[in-house]
């Protein structure tokens, strides 16, 4: 990633190139600053968007509105995180169940049911094939439909057929029906996505894993649960964590169904006659999201490195150099080797 550590795309710049780069960069920076001043700062200042009237309640602890605004934002943030945590837990659970179910159905529909009488065997095969197709359709519909539409559907449509999520608020911990609508909507989408991640992880494992498990007498279900699934979790950990970042970001869609998560709270606060600062609100809320998600993304990268090491080191014969990439020539793989 960093140029210093030996990318192979270009020679390390010499003193003249470095000087040119510096001069051009400074000039470009000055130009950019000037453009930013005239095109962004000036219009904003003219509109009074940079005044302390608008920013003060958000960034100045001395401001009289500061505590109230941040208390509300804190409540919104808590509502966002609460919905995100539930959505993540349910998505993981639903995804795991779906992955196991789909794998079992696929295997069942390929089985011959040798010991059973012919009509029963045929019925069993037919049933498992039908269920397999049905789950496939379910997966494709909810994976292919936008998550906003799914959330809106859960919120507006399901209550019409009597499926309104209950209000499970505890004292001091509001968990209204709206939150569950959001959680269900997010779970329908992300559960399916996580299910596919896990399934492809299990199917990507070497066949020897399944064969060995069968050889020691495990049933197909035992094979999936005890041999394939744990490995799929491990291999797919980075993909899973990126999906969790997606869930957290998508929780912001709660404002569409009027759930008072942080976006909606910011929205309402911005309409308050004492504040009237939508732009500043969204910038602040956006920053909060960036900080939290960036931390999660870094965690994903870190885990990816660890998982990659765990897998690569034993498979790497001592003498063979690891593959180097274009932008990280040899640096990272060498570290693996020295550790191996």
């Amino acid at each position, binding site marked *: 990633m960093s140029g210093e550590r030996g990318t192979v795309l270009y020679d390390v710049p010499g003193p003249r190139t470095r000087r040119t780069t510096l001069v051009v960069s400074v000039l470009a920076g000055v130009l950019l600053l000037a453009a930013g001043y005239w095109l962004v700062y000036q219009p904003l200042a003219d509109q009074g968007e940079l005044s302390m009237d608008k920013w003060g309640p958000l960034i100045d602890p001395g401001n009289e509105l500061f505590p109230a605004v941040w208390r509300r934002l804190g409540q919104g943030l808590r509502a966002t995180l609460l919905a995100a945590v539930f959505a993540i837990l349910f998505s993981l659970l639903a995804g795991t169940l779906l992955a196991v179910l789909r794998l079992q159905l696929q295997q069942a529909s390929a089985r011959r049911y040798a010991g059973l009488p012919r009509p029963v065997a045929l019925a069993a095969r037919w049933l498992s094939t039908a269920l397999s197709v049905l789950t496939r359709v379910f997966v494709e519909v909810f994976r292919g439909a936008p998550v906003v539409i799914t959330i809106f559907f859960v919120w507006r449509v399901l209550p019409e057929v009597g499926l309104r999520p209950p209000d499970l608020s505890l004292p001091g911990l509001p968990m209204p029906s709206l939150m569950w609508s959001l959680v269900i909507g997010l779970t329908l989408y992300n559960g399916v996505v996580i299910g596919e991640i896990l399934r492809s992880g299990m199917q990507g494992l070497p066949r020897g894993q399944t064969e060995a498990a069968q050889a020691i007498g495990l049933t197909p279900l035992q094979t999936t649960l005890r041999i394939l699934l744990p490995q799929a979790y491990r291999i797919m950990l980075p993909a899973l964590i990126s999906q969790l970042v997606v869930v957290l970001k998508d929780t912001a869609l709660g404002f569409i169904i009027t759930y008072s998560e942080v976006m909606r709270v910011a929205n309402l606060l911005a309409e308050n006659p004492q504040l009237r600062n*939508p732009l500043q609100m969204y910038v602040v809320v956006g920053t909060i999201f960036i900080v939290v998600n960036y931390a999660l993304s870094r965690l994903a990268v870190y885990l990816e490195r660890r998982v990659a090491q765990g897998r690569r080191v034993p498979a790497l014969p001592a003498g063979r150099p690891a593959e180097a990439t274009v932008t990280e020539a040899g640096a990272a793989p060498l570290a693996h080797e020295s550790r191996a």
Partner: protein
Amino acid sequence: MDVIIENREAFLSGLLLTFQLCALAVVGSLVLGTVLAVMRISPVPPLRWLATSYVNVFRNVPLTVVFFLVVFALPTIGVRADFLRIPGLDLAFTRLGIDLPYFRMAIFALLLYTGAFVCEALRSGVNAVPAGQAEAARAIGLTFGQNLRHVVLPQAWKAAVVPLGSVIIAMIKNSALAGFFGLTGDLSATFQQLISARGQPAIPVFLAVAAGYLVMTVPLGLLLDRVEKRQAVTR
């Protein structure tokens, strides 16, 4: 079923507008993403920093926030995405020329957001190119630009196709948010309008709208599966 047949024109025009929105946003985000990717691997440190921070910001912020800022904040500094009124293009995409800026704003928000993901997909492709290729190109005296243009990017493209496709599929689904930010007449706005305002039976409407998105995403997904399988064989 009657709902769908009665409102088929609304559905079809919604599908068309969503398709137009996606097509324009895809082109825009591919351009932006390529520029960002080249900046991220370039020899000029400030460009690398700039592109890296752009990607980090836009990958970690919810699209909702991007939409809020673009649709409600940009007009306060006088930006109404008029640069998207490209002469000639607004003949085919008539909504580009209309005074209400929501169609242009939706494209702008989507391409800003998706550009960051395109950049990452391309960079993963660049990383898949064996280092020897770039070294050989340098050894015969190609400059950074020539190296990228003639040696690295053509090969990176191959490895980047599948991740790029996933990014585009995600973008098509993300485009549904536009209907909640002032754009009228696309699939998701049609969905809300039919359900909220006219009180139509909702489940068929949901299935029809979902089908509208599936028509765009499923073929793309199947195509990607085929490309992926073929690549797995050649490797």
